[in-house]
Structure formats: structure tokens, C-alpha cells
């Protein structure tokens, strides 16, 4: 019994060493597994280091040129989001938007102040380039708020002219107001929203591309038999022995991302760090058999890397992170459910961004565990089939 256990430990150790040697010899794997995760994490993360956009450029066509229009423009200048590039004629404003110099323009009609003072309806026209969502929606939100504020100021003056005390007129100005509380991302920042998911995706994709590429290389160079023989013929040991290298490596990356990268980018984990660590390790454990299975479908490392390279965006887009899951068509919801990223992202964002615990997302934990079991069985079954097929081919060639 003791001898068997010793033998078992030896094969795990041998597999771990074998994998380390294979990776060290293959510069493609070295790049993907050792350099890409760190480089990508800093590289992509830096894009969103300012977290939110500010100073979205617009032009103003001020056809009124009165005290009220100047006050209105000054209020717009006071916001962080709106950058008034220039006061220009209409044609220039339009041309600047066409050229991409501005994201829109505001047209203040002639006679604005006069109409406001004489209680006639007055209009300001905001033209936005909505081809890009973020700048146009941020502009719209901020300019709407400023317009309502200036409108409230007009009402305040009117009330005071009617003889109301300043206290009462202040109360009358805005009897109902909306107070926005964006929870778990107080500034509704794009960077705060995206960076945690991006780091998880980098962890996943570099692991999957590297591991599946490595397994495809094993098939391409006819090393599957050698790999399983190192595990004394036990396919399960072969999978987890190989996977141990990736488990350790990507466990370290996970720890690094959640500590160093988060700190550099000014993030903090709101939930329990231990729970987060446990979920990351479970995620890596699920990705390992999945990556080995995918890699073993290919006989060419190059083709495997090419195909996996195109999986990044589709995987990210169907996990419910950027687009609600319930809005996906039913077949895509099935695909989404088969990806470990979907339950992991659900758990991970809850812990990292919302301060939730695993208990709050138990269905996702069960989902992730089920995928781990499923991919483990699929991978064992498939590798056994490959081994049997290879031995039949050899027998046939021998005969």
C-alpha cells in the first residue's frame, strides 16, 4: 500500500516536472503562459486606469448671446463631463461633429432669455453623435441635469419676484427630485465596471490558450502515449498531473492579479479574500480539464492557438458580464451555461465588487462544481478514446 502511494506521488511529481520541461522548451508556450498573463494584465488594465471618461468635447452655437445663455454655458463648463470646445456657427459645429472633433453640439435659439422671461416656451437643441454610446449617453445625462438646474434657477427667480421668501421659493423650485445611488460602483465608471472582469478573462484565456496549445502539441508530436505512461497508464493522473503545473502557476497569477494589479489600479476586494481565492482555484480546476479536452481535439498546435485566439470575445460576451444573460437567445444561453466563465464571473463579481459571500450565490457555486465534474469526465473519456485509437492504429500498422 505504502509502495503504491509512493509510486503515485512519484508519477505526479514526474508529470509536473515533465510539463515544466515541455513549457521551458516551447517558446510559444513560454510566451503564452509566462509573459502574456502579466503583460496583458498591466497592458489592458492601463487603458482603464483613469476609470471614467471626462471632458467629452462639444461645440455650442449660441444664437442668443444673453446673460441667461452665458449662465447656461458656464454651468455646462462647470461639469467634469462636458468640455465646451468653442462657441461656433452652426455649420462649423456640424462639420466638427462629422470630423469626429466633437461628439455633438448644443444649439441655443435666438431669443431664449426673452422667451423665458416672458413665460413662453423656449428650446435648446442638443445634437449627439450616438454612434458611440458612452460619450453620447454621458453627455445627455449631464446636459439634462444642467438644463433642469438652470430651469430651477429660473423658477426660483420667478417665485422671488412673486414675493415669496427665499426659503419658501427654494422649496417650491423642485418639489420632487431624484437622488441617484449607483451601488457598488459609485461613479458608474466604465473602468470600475470592466477591469475586474477583464482580469478574470485574461487569467482564463491565457490558461486555456497555453494549456490547449500544449496538449495539441503533445498530439502533433505523438507524445500522448509518453504523457499517459508517465502517469503509469492512469488517464486521470495524467490529466491532473499535467494540470498541477497550471494550477500552481495560475493560482499564483490569480493571487498576483487580485493583490498587485488591483492595488496598482486602485481597486479593493469588497468581499472575503479567502472566499475569492477559493473560487479562483475552483475556476482554474474547472478550466484545466476543459483546456486539455479542447487541446486534444486538435492535431496541430498552430491551429489550436488560432482557433482559441478567436474564442476570447465570444466567451466574454455571453457570460452575462457585459450583456444580461436573459437577453441572449436560448441556444446561446445553453452555450453560456456550458462555460465555466459564466458561474465564475457571477460569483467573482459578487465577491469582488458587491461584497457578497459565496452563500449569496450558491447556485453559481453548484453550477461551477457541476462543470468541473462534467469536464473532468469528458476529458478522461476522450483521452482514453485517443489512447485506444492510437494503440489500434499501431497494431494495424504492425500487422
Amino acid at each position, binding site marked *: 500500500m505504502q509502495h503504491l502511494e509512493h509510486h503515485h506521488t512519484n508519477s505526479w511529481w514526474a508529470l509536473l516536472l515533465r510539463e515544466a520541461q515541455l513549457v521551458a522548451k516551447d517558446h510559444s508556450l513560454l510566451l503564452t503562459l509566462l509573459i502574456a498573463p502579466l503583460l496583458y494584465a498591466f497592458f489592458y488594465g492601463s487603458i482603464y486606469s483613469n476609470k471614467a471618461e471626462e471632458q467629452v468635447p462639444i461645440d455650442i452655437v449660441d444664437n442668443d448671446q444673453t446673460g441667461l445663455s452665458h449662465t447656461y454655458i458656464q454651468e455646462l463648463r462647470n461639469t467634469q463631463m462636458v468640455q465646451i470646445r468653442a462657441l461656433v456657427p452652426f455649420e462649423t459645429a456640424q462639420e466638427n461633429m462629422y470630423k469626429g472633433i466633437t461628439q455633438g453640439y448644443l444649439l441655443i435659439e435666438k431669443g431664449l432669455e426673452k422667451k423665458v422671461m416672458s*413665460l413662453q416656451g423656449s428650446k435648446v437643441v442638443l445634437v449627439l453623435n*450616438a*454612434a458611440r454610446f458612452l460619450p453620447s449617453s454621458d453627455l445627455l445625462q449631464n446636459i439634462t441635469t444642467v438644463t433642469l438646474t438652470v430651469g430651477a434657477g429660473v423658477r426660483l427667480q420667478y417665485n422671488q419676484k412673486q414675493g415669496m421668501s427665499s426659503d419658501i421659493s427654494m422649496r417650491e423650485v*423642485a418639489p420632487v427630485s*431624484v437622488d441617484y*445611488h449607483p451601488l457598488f460602483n459609485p461613479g458608474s465608471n466604465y473602468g470600475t465596471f470592466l477591469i475586474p472582469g477583464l482580469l478574470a478573462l485574461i487569467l482564463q484565456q491565457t490558461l486555456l*490558450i497555453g494549456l490547449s496549445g500544449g496538449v495539441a502539441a503533445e498530439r502533433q508530436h505523438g507524445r500522448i502515449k509518453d504523457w499517459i505512461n508517465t502517469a503509469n497508464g492512469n488517464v486521470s493522473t495524467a490529466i491532473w498531473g499535467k494540470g498541477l503545473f497550471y494550477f500552481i502557476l495560475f493560482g499564483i497569477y490569480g493571487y498576483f492579479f487580485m493583490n498587485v494589479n488591483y492595488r496598482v489600479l486602485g481597486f479593493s476586494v469588497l468581499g472575503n479574500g479567502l472566499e475569492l481565492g477559493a473560487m479562483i482555484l475552483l475556476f482554474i480546476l474547472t478550466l484545466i480539464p476543459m483546456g486539455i479536452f479542447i487541446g486534444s481535439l486538435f492535431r496541430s498546435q498552430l491551429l489550436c492557438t488560432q*482557433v482559441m485566439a478567436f474564442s476570447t470575445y465570444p466567451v466574454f460576451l455571453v457570460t452575462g458580464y457585459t450583456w444580461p444573460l436573459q437577453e441572449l437567445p436560448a441556444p446561446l444561453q445553453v452555450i453560456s451555461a456550458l462555460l465555466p466563465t459564466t458561474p465564475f464571473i457571477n460569483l467573482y463579481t*459578487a465577491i469582488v465588487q458587491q*461584497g457578497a459571500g459565496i452563500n449569496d450565490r450558491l447556485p453559481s457555486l453548484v453550477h461551477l462544481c457541476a462543470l468541473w465534474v462534467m469536464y473532468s469526465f469528458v476529458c478522461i473519456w476522450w483521452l482514453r478514446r485517443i489512447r485506444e485509437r492510437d494503440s489500434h492504429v499501431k497494431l494495424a500498422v504492425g500487422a
Partner: protein
Amino acid sequence: MIRSVLNICTREWKRILTRPDHYIVLILMPPLLFIFYALIYQNQKAYDLPVVIWDEDHSALSRQLTFMLEQTESIHITGQVNGMEELKTLMQKGKISGAVHFPARMERDIKSRHPVTIPVFTNASALVPGKLIYSDASTVLITAASGVILQKFQKLGMTEAKAMALVMPIQLDTYRLYNPAYNYQQYLVPGLITVALQMMIIMVSVLAINTEWNEGSMQELHGLSNGSAGNIILGKTLAHLGISWINFILVVGILFPYFNLSRSGHHLELFILFNFLSLACTGIGFMISVLAQDTMLAADVGLFYTSPAFVFSGFTFPRWAMPWYDQYYAQLMPYTSFLDGFFQVYFMGLPLSYAGIYMLKMSLFIGFTYFIAVFFLQQRFKKQLAYAAS
């Protein structure tokens, strides 16, 4: 020369159609991937997001507002909560995306001229649902507030027109051009497709030259080209350009009309712009392929270079909000220039002249990369000849 180039072009087409690392990426993957992208956003907008009401007022007004909120596109009232903790817990469990709180004495305070604040909560860690809920909720509540002010002024004997002018002294008329309904399919899918196309072109063209050396077929190619690196690069370019035209037809002729993503006219302008992207990407791929003998290394360089193109291009997060060094890096990818031109030609329907500067930038990529590819390939031929002669 023409015959030589045409022979190389025909030979390259055969290679593309017979090598899995070429035809899977260039022929099989585009329709699958592009349909997948289009299907993700088939609903175009997010509807009926789960929102709860925290009603401490229990008045006719709070019920009326709840009814109005339910009528919006994005909000679906799924229940009631009784406090902040319950609200937060439901968000943490992922059961709700937002909440609206009607404070106690709301209706009475409004009637007795005490200002009332209505808090709207969203789970902003998911940005799309959060923004949609806030937008719809604030529209409903501001409209309701305007109604309250309007009634007050009318009670004072003001005409409706004058009262309206005081309720909304400055009326903001908004024109959201090019995608007025904020349709996610129309916004994201063309961008995702074009970024995938540039990636496909580069990921295959990085294999165009080095595989010939590695697989021993360069001698045959050298013979076909009459020893001219220029003929080889030109012949292969024509073949890859031809395939990219097929993909252009697939996208603009089939997928865009099928998924209602077509914009009026401007197909020719778009085609011209797309050719600049194709040539720039093919040039980059060929340059890498000439310089990197190892195919896996070339593929890794191609992958590393192309995969960040989408985020650096400023499609979803504007470039001006990025740190200065990232803004410079973005300019090192032809997709960035293409995207700027694509916005003008495809989304905004402007004449091609507006994209002139971006075509010029892509021309710089084309000139530089093709020069490097031809020069170093010719140098290598010279070395081989010198080696053979010695």
C-alpha cells in the same frame, strides 16, 4: 511579371483552400463567428430588468409612480422590500438590478409644499442594466415632478402654456443621430465583425512566407516568381485580398441585410475603406512572416498584436479617456484608423473624403510593411543564392 504574379496568386488560393490553418480561419470561421455576434445582441436592448420598490409612503401617488415605472421598457417591478439591507442583499444575490424608494409622507409632503427626494438605486457593477434603469426611472420621476409643479402653477390661476413654460423654462430637445434607440446590435456587431476580420487576416498572413521556408516549398515559389520577392508578395497579396473580398460580401451583402444592420448606400465607400484595412493587415502579416521564421512565434506575435485592437481602438471606451501612452499605442494598429473612418462612412453615412486622413494613415502601414517584407525576403534570396554559389 504579370504571369508570374497570377501564378503565385492562384497557387496561394490553392494553399488557402487546402491548409486547415488557412481555410478554417479565413473561410469557415467568419460566418460562424459573425452570426454568433449578431445573435448575442438579437434583442437589441435589455428589457424588463428586475427592480423592486421600497415603498414607505403607501399612497395613491406611490402606486401611480410604481405603475408608471412598470410601463417603461427596461424596468420590471418584481417585488417590494422594506429596507436598505434587504435591498442590498437582493442585489448581492443577483436577484435585482435596481430599486426605487418612495419615502414616508411623500405624497403629503408634496401637497404641503415640502420638497421630496426619491432615491433610485442601481447595481452599477453591471453598467448596462444600471444605466438603463436609471435613465427610465429618472424620466418617469422627473415627468411626475413636472406634473406636480404644473398643477401648482395652474392652481395659482396660470394658463397651461405659461405654467408649462415655468415647469420647463428651457426645454431640451435631443437628437441622437446614427443610433437614436441605442440599439446594441447596431452599435456593437459591426465593430466586433470588423475587428475579427482584421485579426483573421493577420493571423493567416503571418504564415504566408515562413511556412514556405519551413515546409520546403520556397524553392518552387522562388522559381515561379523568377526570383523576385516583389512578385511573391504581390501574388500572395492578391490572393488574400480576394478572400477578404469574399468576407466583405458575406458581411455587407448577406449578414448586414439579414440582421437589419445595413445603412443606406455607401457600399462602395465602405469597400474602398475596407481594402485599406485588408492591405494594411496583410502587409503587417507578411512583414512578420518574413522576419519570424518560426510559425508559432509568428502566430503568437500576430495574436499579441491583434487581440487588443478592439479595446485600444476606442470603440467602447473613448481614446481620449486613456492615458497618453495607450493613445499612442492605439495608433500603432491600423484598426484604430479604420474604425475612425468606419464610424464616418458606415455609421454616419458621410462621403469617403471624411475618412481621407484615416486612409492616409493606413497607407503608411501599407507602405512601410510591404517595403520591409519585400526587402528582407529579397535579401534572404540573395543570401541563399550566395550560399548555393559558394
